[in-house]
């Protein structure tokens, strides 16, 4: 039920996630932040089972911080993506974690990158993608309007177009989305007045 969308722009990665926590027909909380700041230059947008995705992503975050304190260095987005995938691939046959993730990061050497990781341990590097029901509705929109080296403003407009498409065709009304962008200056939330 969680809708998570992300795209890679000229020098940034933009992620958007809905903010509802719902069980069957009840919306329990409508201001959930599903985009975790893994470190200064990485975001992890999550969807799936609420308990699982918080537990698992915080575990990943603390391990990343430990690595930073041990070595004085930050892992690259590529390395983190493979670490996360490895953990999920191990856990699927031991104690499955029902969470689907979009990892966005900015590395000073290789620039922005986006990784699609699902609960089975699938890992793909992509320019734009979505997790959850949203993918059924907006991948076509992204195919039609996404261009490489898109600017941040164009990216935000494209995201809004996707969300509008969801509100038109998706039976579940997801009113609120949180937008976070990662670029050379770090992670920040984009607020709309």
């Amino acid at each position, binding site marked *: 039920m969680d809708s998570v969308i992300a795209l890679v722009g000229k020098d940034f990665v933009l992620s958007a996630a809905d903010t509802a926590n719902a069980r069957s027909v009840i919306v329990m909380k409508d201001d959930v932040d599903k985009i975790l700041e893994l470190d200064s230059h990485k975001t992890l947008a999550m969807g799936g089972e609420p308990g699982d995705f918080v537990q698992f992503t*915080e*575990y990943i975050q*603390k391990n990343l*911080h*430990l690595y930073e*304190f041990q070595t004085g260095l930050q892992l690259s987005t590529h390395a983190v993506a493979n670490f996360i995938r490895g953990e999920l691939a191990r856990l699927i046959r031991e104690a499955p974690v029902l969470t689907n993730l979009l990892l966005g990061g900015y590395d000073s050497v290789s620039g922005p990158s986006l990784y699609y990781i699902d609960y089975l341990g699938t890992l793909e590097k992509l320019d734009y993608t979505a997790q959850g029901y949203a993918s059924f509705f907006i991948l076509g929109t992204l195919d039609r309007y996404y261009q490489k080296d898109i600017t941040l403003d164009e990216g935000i407009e494209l995201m809004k177009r996707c969300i509008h498409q969801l509100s038109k065709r998706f039976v579940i009304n997801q009113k609120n989305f949180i937008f976070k962008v990662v670029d050379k200056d770090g992670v920040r939330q984009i607020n709309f007045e």
Partner: protein
Amino acid sequence: MSQSRYDRAITVFSPDGHLFQVEYALEAVRKGTTAVGVRGKNVIVLAVEKKSIAKLQEARTVRKMCLLDKHICLAFAGLTADARVLVNRARVECQSYRLTVEDAPSVDYITRYIANLQQRYTQSGGVRPFGISTLIIGFDTDGTPRLFQTDPSGTFSEWKANAIGRNSKTIVEFLEKNYSKVMSESSDEDDEKTSVKFAIRALLEVVEGSHNNIEIAVMLPEKGLKMLESSTIQQYIDEIEEEKAAAEEARRASGPVPTASSRG
């Protein structure tokens, strides 16, 4: 003496109540390079004597001060390899605490953890104690600055200022003599400057005064750890040398030198 029969396995007390392995570990600490910690009103300073490194060695890989978490730093005196193991365990514990409790660990908690670890190695079979004493600095979540010390026996205590390693006794005497006066005369804006200068002055009692020999770390609330540049350290040293020279001048000018006869 019969001491030698009671230091093979450290689980054994000697007849007069000594744990000799622990005392020998303290000897190893006394041979290590010096570390000084000073707690200011809103800042904590660690000053360490930089070990002289070989010409071909990369200076940056020889670290005496280790960041355990964003808000906690540790300096040690003694066996570097033992410190590396202990620091790693503490770093894992910091992240583990944050994962379970979703709060930053207090300096007291981490000190207690490290001290417990050190104590466990004085009461197990076939292991020797860690050959290090540590100075642990940091801010608690409520903003209180803290300075703790641990030693190979596993005891720990909180301090306003302390020193460990070579010639630490001399430094502690200096700190005891001057801490209250220096801290009471310092204002809030000058807190960092006063504390850093005091720590350097203390270290200069036993170490040669050059930026090549001294490393300074300052822990600030919110901002975390700041390592001072060599040029800044040299500035402080120059200031201190000037003040010492001026004080010497004043002393010479104020009174006559005692004559040989007064020495009786």
